[in-house]
């Protein structure tokens, strides 16, 4: 797992990267009440703003640490079901309770795997949040 300056985490399988926000970020934001997710099938550049996260305390922009095309968003967090109906069973608490697994946000097909080189490993990220 890799980490960005903006407190996102990334895991990679083939050319697909899965992105979420870190436990530290979720803890700083407090209880999350809404997430605006990126559009599926849309291409974003590295560090583009792709959405926002609203907590009981504040609203923060959501960035993508990797450029590429978004292929999937977390159905437990999305406003709509895969069939396009209103999702009335959203679980924003997954991000607070299980940021690295159930709380993932979106999957992106990487346009340039070199984007991963700029990310931090766990030790580097832990050192950054301590500083």
């Amino acid at each position, binding site marked *: 797992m890799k980490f960005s300056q903006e407190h996102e985490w990334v895991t990679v399988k083939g050319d697909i990267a899965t992105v979420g926000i870190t436990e530290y970020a979720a803890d*700083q934001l*407090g*209880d*999350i*009440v*809404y997430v605006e997710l990126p559009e599926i099938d849309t291409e974003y550049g590295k560090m583009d703003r792709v959405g926002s996260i*609203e907590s*009981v*305390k*504040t609203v923060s922009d959501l960035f993508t640490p990797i450029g590429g095309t978004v292929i999937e968003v977390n159905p437990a967090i999305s406003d709509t079901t895969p069939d396009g109906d209103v999702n009335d069973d959203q679980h*924003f*608490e997954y991000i607070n309770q299980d940021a690295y697994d159930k709380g993932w946000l979106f999957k992106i097909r990487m346009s340039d795997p070199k984007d991963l080189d700029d990310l931090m490993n766990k030790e580097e990220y832990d050192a950054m949040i301590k500083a």
Partner: protein
Amino acid sequence: MTKIIFEKTSEGRKGSAVPEKDINIAEISIDIDEEMKADKIPDLPELSELDVIRHYTELANKNICVNSHFYPLGSCTMKYNPCVNEEIASMRSFTDIHPYQVESSVSGNLEIMYLLKKYLCELTGMDDFTLQPAAGAHGEFTAMLMTKKWFELKKENRTKILIPDSAHGTNPASANMAGFEVVQIASNENGTVNLDDLEAKIDDKTACFMMTNPNTLGLFERDILKISEKIHSKGGLLYYDGANLNAILGLVRPGDAGFDFVHLNMHKTFSTPHGGGGPGAGPVGAKGKLAECLPLPKIIQKEDKTFSLMYDNPSSIGRVKAFYGNFLVLVKALAYILSMGKDEIANVAKLSVLNANYLLKKLEDIYEIPYGKSCMHEFVASADRQKNIGVTAIDICKRMLDYGFHAPTVYFPLIVHEALMIEPTETESIQTLDLYSEILHKIQEETEKNPDLLHEAPHNMPVKRLDDVTAARKPDLAYKK
């Protein structure tokens, strides 16, 4: 929990008796579409006058307000609102007028507004004011429209508004609403504007720099003259968000520090009631030629010394509100200024700064104070230390309610973790400040010995800890049977 008034209804109960009708009432037939007609009579509660009085008195007693509690809500300047303001504003010559009355019959009311304008000019170093905006953010938006107009008149295409990262959220919102691009300026390690970052981001597309001074960390921007020079050398405007004017009222004039225009919050600095207590007022003032862009109508004094409304000025952005502003709020602000007087008004700033520093010193042994050893009218403490042992800023604030204090502003500004933004204002006595400090020390003891007491707070309020997430996600806003 208190029942709502609809649940207290008792069929057939009446508040007052209406005499039996003893005349024939003419039948009036009006053509109303069937679908527009209500299919049942409205479901209004049936109560006696005493039921209603008891209901609202009970609700009023649950209220936490400046009249009942110490209310150190940072950035909001919750000072005491003197009774004399209300007394004056309830005079019939102010309440029983109509905005469509002929001008000559309300010349005295226009004079009131003209006088207030003059005093606000004197206090801020501006040349003219509009009293129209209904609140601080409305004032900011008005200022952004003026900025747009200013550069249109100068035929310059400027698209960017610079805003410090410690600013109130309304600043970027106002700039955005007016169609500008917002550029964030970082703070330096002292909590004030980072001049290098400003230098790097300012360019010939910069329309304006919006500043709050002292800023939201309660720190005076000492580099203000350098900043003003920098902005003006690039042809930009410098805007003063008056949220924190209380700290410098009567001592420093924004206009003298290089600000081109300002908005003021009557409900903060000038002791009129806040939001829930009635409409607000956020007058905007400007210097020199920029004042030509202020909204119309403008209140002027004619040669015969009477007062009038002037509607003709192509440089103006036009109206920003129906009629002339929230008049009774303006009357209260003028009453406040006059009751203070020229000599006393600087004491507002001196005592608000003294009170804030007194509390800062009293509390620095329990909370981290990330920026500065001293402050202006408010300071931002951090509950980071407490968070390390599992107690958050919100837990501490909920516990304060149990002890009879309103909570400070929390989690703002965003650049401070677990922020507690404390603004005591000048109207609090040393006894109140001492008691507040004593209670916060007691809460610190509880934090260390019995953190669950804080996690579950408040304990003595009509409702316990509310579920913020459900409240935000599934708000219950309307009564349904």
